[in-house]
């Protein structure tokens, strides 16, 4: 489907992500009960909420790492994973899904660098095998990103030779070097020792400032309040409240959000 058709359907062309009524079940348990969300170009949207509220699951649906049973996710106007044909909902061919994923970057909680590749080779893999760039070109891009995340001197190290924070910075470089429309961050600091969190957040801050469109699941409330353009509070598989961080984090309307934020008391201001 072209962008024009998407606009005709009421989707703004400048929207990078647009999800409508997303439902997701694991067996009998419905974990997403109708998610609607729009993310415009350059927005940094933070998903917050208790564990089990469906934040990570939603993120994984955007990248088709999870199947979802109803609703439509569009990235750049193009429906992700499924299409309608004669009133029936069909999964897109694997090749299409694979191509779509290349345009959506993802950074994981557990870094997931490839253990058999150096930091530089981790970044180059997608550039050469997916984007079809030459080794020299991919190497130059990798070097540029490694410098930007402050790891030029670690480029030939294998993941096991890097600290958690360094691995996560490489993982971020691997995701953004593909020049994606949207980058998904799934609790990227949760597995880190407290003293390593800062270096990763600094990199993310830098990316946000440069205008990258980001969807971030995080428990770092201070960080969320400083970089997010919008905060979305999820509760029980639904979006309970959303708005600018100043409003959501400081004047929560619902009791649920108030009690959730209460746990971070003192961290905020």
């Amino acid at each position: 489907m072209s962008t024009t058709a998407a606009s005709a359907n009421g989707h703004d062309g400048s929207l990078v992500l647009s999800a409508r009524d997303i439902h997701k079940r694991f067996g009998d348990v419905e974990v997403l009960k109708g998610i609607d969300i729009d993310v415009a170009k350059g927005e940094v949207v933070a998903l917050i909420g208790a564990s089990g509220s469906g934040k990570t699951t939603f993120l994984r649906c955007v990248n088709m790492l999870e199947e979802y049973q109803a609703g439509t996710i569009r990235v750049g106007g193009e429906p992700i994973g499924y299409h309608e044909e004669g009133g029936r909902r069909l999964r897109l061919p694997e090749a299409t899904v694979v191509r779509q994923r290349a345009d959506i970057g993802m950074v994981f909680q557990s870094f997931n660098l490839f253990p058999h590749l150096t930091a530089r080779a981790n970044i180059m893999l997608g550039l050469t095998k997916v984007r079809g760039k030459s080794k020299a070109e991919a190497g130059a891009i990798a070097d540029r990103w490694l410098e930007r995340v402050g790891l030029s001197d670690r480029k030939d190290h294998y993941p096991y030779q890097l600290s958690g924070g360094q691995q996560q910075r490489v993982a971020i470089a691997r995701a953004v070097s593909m020049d994606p429309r949207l980058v998904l961050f799934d609790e990227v600091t949760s597995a880190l020792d407290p003293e390593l969190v800062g270096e990763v957040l600094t990199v993310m801050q830098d990316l946000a400032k440069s205008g990258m469109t980001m969807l971030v699941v995080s428990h770092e409330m201070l960080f969320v309040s400083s970089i997010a353009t919008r905060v979305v509070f999820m509760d029980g598989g639904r979006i309970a409240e959303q708005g600018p961080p100043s409003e959501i984090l400081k004047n929560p309307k619902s009791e649920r959000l108030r009690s959730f934020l209460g746990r971070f008391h003192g961290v905020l201001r």
Partner: protein
Amino acid sequence: MMTLFQPGHFFYEVWIARGVLLSGLAITVASAASIIAIGLSVGILGGLCLTYAARPIRWVMRAYVDVVRGTPVLVLIFFVFYGTAIIGIDVSPFVAGVLAIGGFCVAHTAETVRGALESIPQAQSDAAKAIGLGFWGRLVHALGPQAVRRALPPWINTAVEMVKGTTLLSLIGVVDLLLAAQQAVSRSFMAMEFYGACLVVYVVICLGISQLGALVERRLAYIRY
């Protein structure tokens, strides 16, 4: 010095039988190489089927692997050897035997490959998907190298077992090293010496494979988590 090469001495008997012993050794090496080649090529495919194929194919492969691994190799050899004759396929004992042991190697390799692939954390596959790699891209560039690292130690064991297994070919009349030695024994009556020498040769080959495997393992030691 000369007495070593007089009739009745072991070295003399070895010298007399040198032709058949050497060709026996060649047969042993050739059969082991063919078996390992069959096992690797078909076994890797089989392992992929066990891990990723649609259910019916997976079940068929599972049944094959379990039946073959649960049966003595010697029974497989006799089955193929006599079986091909009865359905009118004319194959040499060498081919029948190599196919039988090769089929055994396929089952073991497939199981090893499946185990290695399934032991890689799901997150690795997610990460490979996230950068836009398709199935084969993920397999070749992300999961494969990690699987090789994990499959190598058990697979080296399998390779050693296959070399040892080639001795069973002698029981269907393939003149491998063992049968060559047996022929020499029947002329010289030097069972101790010939079977003992045979053992030395097999031990050297098998230890060599293990050493080679350990070398490759060390080269792959950088793949860590």
